[in-house]
């Protein structure tokens, strides 16, 4: 079943066409990787899918509904979420507060927003999520004092607070040490049991080991989509991307 579909998605910045007529279908429950050299338009593609940029042409369908005109927060509430290549955290907040903000948003409060007492259900959910990634002992540490690997984990966890059906991970391995990479890729694999994931990643070992499907972008265009095996064989892909890496 197709959960997300783009049709002729195009985004231009001045003379540069960052994303050029990308038509792609994402299957539910699978891990799809998007690879391509720097500047291929992968992050812009994520920004389009989540409403941060509006496309110049083309449409985006999520669960058969047209979400193209929706603002970011509405797309998040529909069930798409993302993590960030350049970490986007609340730097002067503790670990707890970082996750809390996401959990509170997902609960969608009305008048309780102005209550003086703590929202007990938010606290419990927040603690549970932090426990899941083994950072319970650092709950009250300011996030800026955490290691890069821990911070990246929090970035991913915040994007899970909105209970997404589709999760976009933007270079989740970037800057991680080798043992952290193993942990992160296991974490992603576990996640994929319950949700659909699109990963932008440069680490080819990870990409080929976790992906069900790989899409290759080059200069804003989608040049190939297929199973890891098909992509490995594809000559155009080898020329455009894999070739220069090997």
């Amino acid at each position, binding site marked *: 079943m197709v959960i997300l579909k783009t049709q002729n998605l195009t985004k231009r910045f001045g003379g540069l066409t960052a994303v050029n007529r990308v038509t792609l279908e994402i299957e539910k429950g699978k891990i799809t990787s998007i690879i391509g050299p720097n500047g291929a338009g992968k992050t812009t593609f994520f920004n389009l899918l989540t409403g941060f940029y509006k496309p110049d042409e083309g449409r985006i369908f999520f669960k058969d509904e047209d979400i193209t005109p929706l603002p*970011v927060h509405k797309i998040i509430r529909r069930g798409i979420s993302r993590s960030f290549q350049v970490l986007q955290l609340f*730097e002067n907040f503790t670990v707890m507060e970082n996750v*809390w*903000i996401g959990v509170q*948003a997902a609960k969608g409060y009305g008048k309780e*927003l102005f209550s003086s007492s703590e929202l007990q259900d938010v606290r419990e959910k927040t603690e549970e999520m932090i426990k899941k990634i083994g950072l319970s002992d650092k709950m009250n540490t300011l996030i800026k004092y955490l290691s890069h690997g821990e911070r990246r984990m929090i970035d991913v966890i915040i994007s899970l607070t*909105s209970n997404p059906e589709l999760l976009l991970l933007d270079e989740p391995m970037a800057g991680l040490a080798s043992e952290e990479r193993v942990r992160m890729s296991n974490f992603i694999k576990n996640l994929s049991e319950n949700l659909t994931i699109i990963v932008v990643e440069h680490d080819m070992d990870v990409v080929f080991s976790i992906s069900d499907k790989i899409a290759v972008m080059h200069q804003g265009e989608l040049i190939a989509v297929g199973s890891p095996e098909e992509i490995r064989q594809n000559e155009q892909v080898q020329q455009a991307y894999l070739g220069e890496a090997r």
Partner: protein
Amino acid sequence: MPTQKKSLKISMHPLIPFFIIFAVLPYIPFLGEYLSLWIEVMIWVIFAISFNILLGYTGLPSFGQGAFFGIGAYGAAITFLRLVKGVWIPIIVGIIVATAAAAFVGLFVCRKRGIYFALITIAFSQMFFFIAFRWDEVTGGETGLSGIDRLSIGIPRLFSIDLAPLLNYYYFVFVFLVICTLLIWRIVHSPFGRVLRAIKENEVRAKYAGYNTSLYKWVAFMISGIFAGAAGALYTLLINSAFSFVLHWTQSGDVVMMTILGGGLVNFFGPAVGAVIFITLRDMLSAYLRQWLLVYGLIFTLVVLFMRGGILGIFSKRRR
């Protein structure tokens, strides 16, 4: 245990000493004689603390906040002179008009941040200033409006308090100070306030957490306008008049400076400390030194350069 910590905190709620200081101030020898000064201080404390919802908590540099103070002042004055000779109705109308103006301006600024936000708020406040300055028939133009007397409040045949004596008006404003401060405290320490702080920290991430950040910013802007309007209306009753200076851009500048000076970026009471320093320096120093602003400016510069976090920044290692 976090629960134990919490009960400790409640036993010494920081608002209590704050209120006690202002409650006993008129009876402190020497200081108590400057009643009108302290009333003005309390009015500015309300204004500055509410302004800090924007600057300190949401990270929105509103450089035109004086507009809502001024609109509150004019709203109360015009209501008193043209509609109802009273106390409550002019104040309430002043608050409503200021809130409506903030809601209107908020529509234009709530999608902006940083310098664009600042510039648009300045532009609007200048616009309101010139309207007040030129619209003679309604605002009295250059001369302004006068003759706004402080009448009595109370319940007919039961009791009545004459607000004309300064001491009575002091406690009238004090009640406002208590109510406004409690409300603002509640707002910034609520789940809503937490979202505002998240917007200050990282608006992009707040959006991606699922918040309609523009809406939150708009509501924060409007809330801030409510209290600015209240402060303005109380100011009109204090000086028995309203003139275009209350809308002048320097009013907006003063509130920014006192908030930063006192430590509003790190402490709830920072703006209050800044307001006390500013108003007392202005009134006491200016009696001896015409260039008192030079001294104030020097203090401000030194604080900004060497005490990041302002005066109250010394006491708080961690924010708030």
